[in-house]
């Protein structure tokens, strides 16, 4: 088969055995690779209602048809499992050489179940699977584990993804890290830790073939050219940190746990200021011409990667105005393997509760907005589950439920996942996108903010046109995430669906149209929702934190702007309608049949 190996490797850590299975072409055609394939396998491999930390919860790594084609921005892989943070689907992406190697060992999907009796790592060398002792790596940072394992491998070309202490300790927002990048959201690292799996090492030489190499090369060259144009200027020349100053000016920068949409010290921590004062070097993933990563140098001389989301979450969201502190906090998160958005969001919750006298443990640590020492002390405490860190390791929702009282009001999450750096009250399309996203408050599984930032809609006003926009944006993201193409290339396509369909046809030899791809996007998204429904989703799970609905924006250009429950409810209804779901958000049987998803009709439809 072109574009795929059509093979799945299932490793059962209970027995330490791996077994190879054929992947049916029908599944690959229906879901492609990446997030789509991962979601489809999660549905089949996860027992309904499984505890995320049960050995039976599958941890799934998937490759995709475009991986290894040399096409810019496609060196990516997906990690899919049932999230311990949300109880729903966790579908995370990461990238670079590990992604290329995953395909080179000759598989499209790696499904890991079971639990090893002691800490281990998996080494896959083409068709050979070894479970190796890793107790000596316990407590090591992901990058230390990565370099120790690489030095131990037979081949220097081997690539490693690993968890840090946070994953070992099942911190609910722990990441899986490779080459300094992370499969970040939803606690995939905690699931890996629950399996006593420290790392996965890969080494292979199985090339995958494309049906029309010359045709693929021509498209690759054209996209490469386009990837170097004005449309990616931001990513190539400043990076995502550029968002901070703009969002602040537009009243869309969540500050001090969403108390304000502007930060008085935004200039001090802006991407522009960091670039002028701390820039060290530019970096990129394997096979990428955009190279958006920025490394900044701290006063100690250490280099630290920084993205907008990390900068916002550990900066303004926590009231931190010193870029040096943000860099140190980001370094700690990387060292322990923590999702920076959830870390910042959970700490901001703790700071707010501490200032209101509702969380004694946080008060003892001195956690307050803008206090650097307490912030830097709290991150290791979370990773080690020490003191108040043990409470915070559950994320803001669980910590608030444990603490009780009014603290739940200050927990800024959707479905348990902490909100990213896009203020919903001044970005109304995004507000809807965040409320209905299957993985919780997520800015990546739809790009709903795009409509707000383009002038296509009135970003300050809610209306019933948003449902269709959000649905289209989710389907679009589902296709990007399953081919896989980086979102930072998305604007370089003139007509994404027809160009991608042509590309997929040339890679796989299938005859694929833009209509097929749109249908695939809808199918993938619908299956994510279907999985959530199976795991207990209820209509109230599609909602935003009460603070956002009770408080008007107090500062900035959108001062006075609010989002009411009725407005949110109206937008959600418009979304269900656009999706063809019922008014409570459940999926009618007819829709499942239409998408070729009759698999769970009996379980789902009668709810």
């Amino acid at each position, binding site marked *: 088969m072109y574009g795929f190996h059509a093979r799945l490797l299932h490793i059962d850590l209970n027995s330490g055995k791996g077994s190879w299975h054929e992947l049916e072409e029908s599944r690959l055609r229906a879901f492609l690779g990446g997030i789509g394939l991962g979601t489809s396998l999660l549905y089949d491999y996860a027992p309904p209602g499984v505890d995320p930390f049960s050995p039976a919860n599958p941890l799934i790594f998937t490759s995709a048809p475009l991986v290894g084609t040399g096409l810019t921005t496609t060196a990516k892989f997906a990690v899919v499992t049932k999230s311990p943070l949300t109880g729903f689907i966790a579908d995370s992406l990461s990238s670079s050489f590990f992604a290329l190697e995953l395909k080179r060992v000759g598989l499209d999907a790696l499904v890991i179940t079971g639990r090893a009796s002691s800490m281990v790592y998996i080494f896959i060398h083409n068709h050979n699977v070894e479970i190796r002792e890793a107790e000596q790596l316990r407590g090591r940072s992901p990058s230390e584990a990565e370099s120790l394992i690489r030095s131990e491998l037979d081949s220097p070309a081997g690539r490693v993804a690993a968890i840090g202490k946070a994953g070992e300790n099942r911190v609910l927002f722990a990441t899986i890290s490779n080459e300094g990048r992370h499969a970040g959201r939803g606690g995939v690292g905690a699931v890996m830790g629950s399996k006593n799996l420290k790392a996965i090492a890969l080494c292979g030489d199985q090339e995958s073939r494309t049906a029309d190499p010359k045709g693929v090369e021509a498209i690759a060259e054209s996209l490469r050219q386009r990837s170097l*144009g*004005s*449309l*990616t*200027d*931001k*990513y190539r*020349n*400043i990076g*995502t940190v*550029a*968002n901070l*100053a*703009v*969002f602040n*000016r*537009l*009243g869309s920068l969540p500050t001090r746990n969403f108390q304000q949409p*502007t930060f008085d010290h935004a*200039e001090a921590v802006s*991407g*522009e200021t960091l*670039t*002028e004062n701390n820039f060290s070097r530019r970096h990129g993933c394997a096979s990428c011409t955009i190279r958006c990563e920025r490394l900044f140098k701290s006063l100690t001389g250490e280099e630290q990667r920084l*993205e*907008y*989301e990390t900068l916002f979450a550990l900066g303004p969201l926590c009231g931190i105005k010193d870029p040096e502190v943000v860099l140190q906090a980001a370094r700690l998160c990387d060292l322990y393997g923590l999702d920076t958005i959830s870390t910042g969001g959970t700490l901001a919750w703790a700071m707010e509760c501490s200032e209101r006298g509702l969380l004694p443990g946080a008060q003892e640590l001195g956690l307050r907005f803008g206090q650097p020492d307490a912030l830097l002390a709290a991150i290791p405490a979370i990773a080690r589950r020490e003191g108040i860190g043990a409470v915070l390791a559950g994320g803001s929702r669980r910590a608030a439920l444990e603490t009780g009282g009014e603290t739940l009001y200050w927990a800024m999450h959707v479905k348990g996942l902490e909100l990213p*750096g896009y203020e919903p009250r001044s970005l109304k399309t995004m507000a809807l996108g965040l409320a209905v996203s299957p993985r919780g408050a997520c*800015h990546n599984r739809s*790009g709903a*903010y*795009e409509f707000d*930032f*383009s*002038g296509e809609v009135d970003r*300050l*006003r809610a209306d019933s046109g948003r449902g269709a926009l959000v649905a289209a944006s989710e389907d679009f993201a589902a296709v990007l995430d399953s081919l896989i193409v980086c*979102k*930072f290339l998305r*604007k370089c396509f003139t007509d994404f669906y027809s160009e991608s369909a042509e590309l997929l046809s040339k890679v796989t030899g299938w005859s694929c149209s833009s209509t097929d791809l749109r249908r695939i996007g809808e199918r993938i998204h619908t299956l994510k929702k279907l999985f959530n429904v199976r795991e207990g989703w209820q209509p109230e799970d599609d909602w935003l934190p009460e603070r956002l609905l009770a408080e*008007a924006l*107090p*500062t*900035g*250009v*959108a*001062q*006075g*702007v*609010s989002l009411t429950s009725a407005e949110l409810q109206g937008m959600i209804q418009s979304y269900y309608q656009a999706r063809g779901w019922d008014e409570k958000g459940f999926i009618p049987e007819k829709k499942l049949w239409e998408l070729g998803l009759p698999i769970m009709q009996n379980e789902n439809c009668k709810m």
Partner: protein
Amino acid sequence: MEAEQSIADATAVILAGGKSSRMGRPKALLLFDSEPLIVHIVRALTRMFAETIVVAAPGQELPHLRATLVRDEVPHQGPVGGIYYGLRAAKGHFCFVTSCDVAFLNLPLISYLLSQISDCDVVVPYWQERFQPLHAVYRQSVLPLLKEQLDRGELRPIFLYEKVRTRKIDEDEIRHFDPDGLSFLNMNTLEDYESALRRWQPPLSISISVPVPVSCTVELFGVARLLAKTNAVSLSLPRGATLSNVLSALAERLPVLVGRVISPDKSSLFSGYACNINGLDFVRNNSARVHPGDKIFILSADAGG
């Protein structure tokens, strides 16, 4: 006894710090007569008053105004708070107080209200069985009473009227100047705003006016800021200038932006860049008009992160 000031020394006070909650967006920045409403109101009142004060909430964003800006010390204390802070900052001994959502100010009516202040402390119109406290004249001597009201949490101005010498202007007097009471037509909802826009008839120019330049500020973000090594520049443009004119002027001022941010013809942005006016409207049409006091942001067209 201190000398009574003349009406010519009166101050205009515009309250702009309200929550605009029913409107869903800052009322002061609604576009009216091709400019933010607050600019429109300030321009009308500066024709008549020696001093104009705008009272805003702390941190509230406003375009550049030919007025003195005063901030509420405590936000959202309602009109009494705004009247108090405005009156306290005024140089004139009496002030005409209005809000930032009245598009149809009637200068002859305001002049009449001022003329009635000599023997009293407050002159307030009574229209359709309601006092119009935000279209009224207040003497500075009522400041202590307003302070007491604030301390007690009495946030409605009418409590003041029974305590001081208040001259009520009834409907007949008002109709003499403003038959339909348009002066009191404030805008609380988008429907009010749309209806006001429909009603608006631009006044006919009665003389050949001297072209007044439009001053605006261009704020740069991201790559544009790094290239230009500056956060903002002020530009002066001919009246009627468009976004395209702004980009040409910007290209002249900062040639480093041409070929990267601004296209070589100097009249548009490259596809990777976008323009937002006053933080509210993303503008894709280069022939869009630019208004005095506008803040024009040049930023990346991609908000991904």
